[in-house]
């Protein structure tokens, strides 16, 4: 779910979403909970999620939320994969506003800012 998620990151210029690049990812199976997915729908920033998923080479997510999202099993399965099963092991997240690069190493992002960026 890390980074393949609507949650954005903040930086001094307040930009979201961060641009992912130079990444390696892996898929780890997780138990699907339909109720959880349906409840998450209103919390997702769909555009951000979609563009990031595309960048990660994940197909299967529609460009816009389908009108029958809550009952569309195929859609929910694709969403489940993106939200809960795809993990980024290594990568870079760049802010399009200030160009700060947040690294991801071994699955862990480092969101600390340098002194002059605070």
């Amino acid at each position: 779910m890390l980074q393949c998620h609507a949650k954005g990151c903040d930086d001094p210029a307040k930009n979201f979403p961060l641009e992912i690049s130079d990444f390696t990812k892996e898929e780890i199976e997780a138990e699907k909970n339909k109720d959880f997915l349906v409840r998450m729908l209103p919390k997702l920033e769909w555009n951000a999620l979609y563009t990031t998923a595309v960048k990660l080479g994940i197909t299967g997510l529609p460009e816009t939320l389908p009108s029958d999202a809550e009952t569309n099993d195929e859609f929910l399965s694709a969403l489940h994969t993106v939200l809960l099963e795809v993990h980024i092991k290594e990568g870079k997240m760049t802010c399009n506003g200030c160009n700060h690069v947040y690294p991801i190493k071994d699955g862990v992002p480092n969101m600390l800012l340098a002194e002059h960026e605070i």
Partner: protein
Amino acid sequence: MVDPIPDKVELSSEEKESIYVHKVYDQIAKHFSNTRYNPWPVIKKYLEDQEPGCIGADIGCGNGKYLGVRSGDMFVIGSDRSPALVEICNERGFESMTADNLNLPYRDNVFDFAISIAVIHHFSTESRRVAAIKEILRTLRKGGTALIYVWALEQDGKRKFEADHQDYLVPWVTKSSKKDSPNDEPNQKTYQR
């Protein structure tokens, strides 16, 4: 037992925290993690009472003790200032990142809830503590809640704290099992008394 020392260290807040908090936790992370395993009941209940499908943050998640309390129907994301502790979270399979409580990498109003357990007293001044709380609140959606635990000013236990001083350095003593000597030198971190 090693006594706590009143905090009279004359350094800037950042320097003080760098030496007495950040560097200390990086050294004691593993031992610290081994002693943190039982979720406290009030916090466990708070997490269990959250609505299914909610998103929360554990700010200062340490070894991820609370990240796994409830899984499957809610999402909790952890962050901690100590890379060593975040690595332990990661090894345990939890979503976590290195981040600073005073500058959280989250947008405004994203979380349904947040927990901050035994974290804020690591900040060395009142204004930084207030700033840390403000940051947590910034990330909560309207109507969201936060649960914050800190060391109490009132202390009745074995450690000796003087009544007239609020901030203390509290010793953390690591024991080396392989070597002959029973104790490593004590490491210390700043606590609000």
